[in-house]
C-alpha cells in the first residue's frame, strides 16, 4: 500500500506557511502537495476528493504564477510594482480558501481513505504513460499549441508523480519537465503582460516573447522523438 501520510502532512503544514503570506515557498509546496495527492487518488482509481484537490490548486495557482514572475530577472520597476500589487490582491482569497472548512474537511478525508495497492497503481501508471505519450505525439500536428503544450506538461507531471509514488526513477522525466516548465513560465509572463495596464507599453516585449516561445516549441517538437524515450521509460524503449 502507498501511504499518503507524508504528503498530506506536507499539504497541511504548508497551508499555514502560505496563509502567512511571507514565504512564497509555502504556496509552491501547497500546489505540489495537492498535485501529488491528486495523482495518489487517481492511482487508487477514485474520483472523489479530486475536485477538492483541484479547487485547492486553483486557489493558489495565480499567486504561485506571480511569485515565479517576481523571482525572475528582467522585470522593470513598473511591471514589478504591478505584479507585487496583483500578488497582494490574491492573498485574501488564498487565505480564505486554505482556512476554509472545505479545506480542513479535505485533509480529514484524505487521512481516512484507503491507500492504493501497488498492483492497481501500476495499472493506472500504464494508462498515464500512454496518455502522456499521446499528448506529446499530438503536439507536432497541433492547431492550438498553447493548449496542447499545457496538456502535455500536466500529463508528464502526473506521470512523474505516479512513478515517484511507486518508487521508480524519474531522472529523465524531470529533464523533459524542466524544458516544459521554462516554456510555461514564458506563457505565464505573456498572459500576465497582456492583462496588465502595461500591455500597450510592453508590446515589443510581448512580440519578442511570443516569437521566442514559438521557436522553443518548434525545437521541442523536433526533440520529441528523443524525449519520447525518456517519457516512455524502460518498458517503452523496445
Amino acid at each position, binding site marked *: 500500500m502507498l501511504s499518503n501520510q507524508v504528503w498530506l502532512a506536507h499539504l497541511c503544514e504548508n497551508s499555514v506557511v502560505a496563509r502567512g503570506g511571507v514565504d512564497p515557498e509555502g504556496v509552491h509546496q501547497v500546489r505540489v502537495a495537492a498535485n501529488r495527492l491528486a495523482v495518489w487518488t487517481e492511482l487508487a482509481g*477514485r*474520483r*472523489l*476528493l*479530486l*475536485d*477538492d484537490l483541484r*479547487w485547492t490548486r486553483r486557489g493558489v495557482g495565480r499567486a504561485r504564477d506571480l511569485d515565479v514572475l517576481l523571482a525572475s530577472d528582467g522585470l522593470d520597476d513598473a511591471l514589478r510594482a504591478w505584479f507585487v500589487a496583483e500578488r497582494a490582491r490574491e492573498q485574501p482569497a488564498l487565505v480564505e480558501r486554505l482556512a476554509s*472548512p*472545505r479545506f*480542513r*474537511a*479535505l485533509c*480529514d*478525508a484524505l487521512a*481516512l*481513505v*484507503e491507500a492504493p495497492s501497488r498492483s492497481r497503481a501500476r495499472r493506472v501508471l500504464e494508462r498515464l504513460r500512454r496518455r502522456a505519450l499521446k499528448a506529446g505525439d499530438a503536439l507536432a500536428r497541433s492547431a492550438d499549441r498553447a493548449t496542447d503544450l499545457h496538456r502535455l506538461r500536466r500529463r508528464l507531471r502526473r506521470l512523474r508523480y505516479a512513478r515517484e509514488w511507486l518508487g521508480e526513477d524519474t531522472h529523465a522525466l524531470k529533464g523533459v519537465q524542466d524544458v516544459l516548465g521554462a516554456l510555461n513560465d514564458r506563457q505565464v509572463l505573456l498572459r500576465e503582460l497582456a492583462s496588465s495596464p502595461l500591455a500597450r507599453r510592453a508590446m515589443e516585449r510581448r512580440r519578442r516573447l511570443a516569437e521566442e516561445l514559438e521557436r522553443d516549441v518548434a525545437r521541442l517538437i523536433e526533440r520529441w522523438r528523443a524525449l519520447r524515450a525518456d517519457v516512455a521509460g524502460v518498458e517503452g524503449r523496445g
Partner: protein
Amino acid sequence: MTMELWIVRHAEAEERRLGLADERRALTRRGRRDADAIARGLRRLGVEIERLHHSPLLRSVETAERLAPLVSGETAVSAELARSPSSALVREIADSGARSLAVVGHEPWLSELAFWLITGWRVDDPRPQPEWIDFPKSGVLRLEGEPRPGGMRLAAFHDVRTLRRVRK
C-alpha cells in the same frame, strides 16, 4: 431558485468497536453492495445529479464514491454534513447553484436537515416534532423546491430494496 435535493444516507458500515475511531468505520461488504445498488437503481431511474457533497467520514466517502459516476459536475467534501445541520449547510446547498444536488451523510442529521427544509421544524424547536419516516442506511430522499427552511417538499423516498428492483 428551485432545485432537486437528493439526500442519501451512507450504506452499512463496520460496527463501532474499541480501537476503531468512528470516522474510520469503512463500509462492510454488504454496505458496498448496497451503495452499488443505490447507484445502479438511480441510474436506471434516469437520475442526473449535477453536484455531490459528502461528509469527510470514511463510510460517507465510500458511499459517495459509488454515486460519483452519476455526477455531471463537481463533488465537494463538506464538514457541515458531519454535524447537526446549521444555517451554513442550508446556505451551502442554496449557493451550490446546482439544479440537482446530492448530499451524502449521517443520521440523525440528515433527517434533521430534511425535516427543517420541509417543515421548518428544527430539533431545538419547542413545538413537538412532526411525524417522520424511519430513514434507513442506504436510504434516499428526493426533495424539491426552494432550499430554505420550510421551502421544500418530499417528492420521493427510496430504500435499497426498491432501488434493487428497478429494471433496465
